[in-house]
């Protein structure tokens, strides 16, 4: 999880092998061997577990195919695809204007949920309240109508797409945020909030629902009356959402194209839902 440096070096090495294999394939034309087909996907740690599951299914249907899934963040996915280090990049947002050189395939939608400790009596926060809390203008739950006590602001580290979605939605500059704790992945965020009755944080709705179902003492809190659940994301009523996108640089290779079609087929839907994401049509 935190071994991105190594993962990257390894990824580069693997991707090099793959590009060599593929170079061989195209040159060889009809002699393409099924036993040497490999595909590398890198990018968002939010999408990676889902894609890894899909890859296992795909591999079992297609003997001889190897799919490597590596994390490192959405920007890593973009840069790996551009440099040809990965066949497909995983990006947990829509493509930006500056990325119009790439082709995006919408895989699913994920919502970002604000979470608080299960013992917190509050059920809703407004847009303004969230901004006040995260910029340090409000530091006590009493000011928000909750039980008195200092607020522990749990924020994600720079580079995480969840953080970008969060800051983008609330129109906050990264420098204005005054966090009490900075975390890396969703799991650490859930644990930090679960262990602190005064904490507020934000994680993937999928991660929040999975943890809450598991009995972890956290609860998603509504934003401007919009309840943070997979259903409200599916209905399109929840404002804090992002697209999970697979991206490629130019046309996909035949194998990559098959995998993208597989990942967007009705069969893949149950896996997308098992990861608490919302499938798109």
């Amino acid at each position, binding site marked *: 999880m935190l071994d991105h*440096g190594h993962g*990257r070096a390894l990824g580069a090495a693997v991707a090099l092998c793959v590009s060599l294999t593929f170079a061989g394939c195209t040159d060889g034309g009809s002699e393409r061997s099924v036993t040497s087909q490999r595909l590398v996907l890198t990018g968002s740690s939010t999408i990676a577990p889902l894609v890894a599951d899909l890859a296992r299914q795909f591999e079992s249907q297609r003997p001889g195919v190897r799919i490597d899934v590596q994390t490192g963040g959405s*920007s890593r996915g973009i840069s790996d695809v551009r440099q040809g280090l990965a066949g497909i990049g995983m990006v947990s947002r829509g493509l930006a204007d500056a990325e119009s050189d790439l082709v995006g395939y919408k895989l699913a939608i994920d919502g970002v949920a604000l979470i608080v400790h299960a013992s917190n009596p509050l059920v809703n926060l407004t847009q303004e309240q969230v901004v006040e809390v995260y910029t340090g203008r409000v530091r006590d739950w009493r000011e928000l109508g909750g039980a008195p006590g200092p607020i*522990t602001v749990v924020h994600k580290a720079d580079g995480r797409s969840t953080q970008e979605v969060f800051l983008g939605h609330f129109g906050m500059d*990264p420098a204005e945020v005054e966090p*009490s*704790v*900075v975390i890396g992945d969703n799991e650490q965020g859930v644990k*930090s909030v679960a*262990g602190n009755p005064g904490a507020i944080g934000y994680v993937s709705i999928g991660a929040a629902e999975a943890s809450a179902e598991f009995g972890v003492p956290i609860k998603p809190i509504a934003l401007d009356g919009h309840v943070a659940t997979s259903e409200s994301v599916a209905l399109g009523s929840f404002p804090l959402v992002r697209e999970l996108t697979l991206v490629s640089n130019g046309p996909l290779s035949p194998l990559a194209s098959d995998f993208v079609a597989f990942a967007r087929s009705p069969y893949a839907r149950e896996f997308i839902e098992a990861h608490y994401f919302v499938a798109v049509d």
Partner: protein
Amino acid sequence: MSPSTKDALLIALLRACAVAAAAVVVLIVAFVARDSWPALRDIGIVRFLSDDWSPTGADPGFGIMPMLVATLVTSAGAITLATPLGIASAVFAHFYAPRGLAVLLRRVMELLAGIPSVVYGLWGLVVLVPLLLRFAPPGQSVLAGTLVLTVMILPTVALMADVALAAVPAPTLQAAHALALPRHAIALKVAVPAARSGIVTGIVLAAGRAVGETMAVLMVCGNVVKLPTSVFDPVRTLTANIALEMGYALADHRAALFVSGLCLLLMWMALASTAGLVRGGRHA
């Protein structure tokens, strides 16, 4: 094959091994230095010490000072706590504990030494942090990091001290007994000074582990880039910063993280040579 040929072969083999081991270290240092160079050249050492840390901002800043302080403070704290505890545990095992208890203590220390750091981190996050939270939120703090590191490095200090005490020559202890010295004097005034070299080695190894520890401190320190004003403040260590951001860093940002890595290497070299000086008096 004559004995002299065998010797020659063995010497050649050993030399090759020694060169290979040294070459790996040199290569690592060279690699880190090479990747840090663009940042050191373009940004300059002064800005690494005086800037804020905002490598992705519109006006990027690359100050690693708060993180350098965080690494120094948590490691120094852990060494300060673990050294007396570790030496005391070894002295107890050697001079006071009944045989069975001493063996048990050693086994426990060996077990502790083998636990992966992520497990210490998890324990810190779900047990220690909520405990500290009762005194001052957010719980993830310098103190949490220091305590987790202390528990992590304690077995290294204790086991090395234990080995060093066992290696104190029997005549030294017999002479002390013959002088009818009390047990505490034999332990603290005779055995510990005689075992100094090994004990210091243990402390240095432990310090290296504390400075380099990443996962555990990442989980319990809070990772806010800020100079701490109390032990309850969250901090981000150099190692945690590299782990949090390396996967997402490009260009100058990436080079700046390599500068953090270079800093850690230099700290370790300084530590190791200090230890050499301390031991030098006896072994030179």
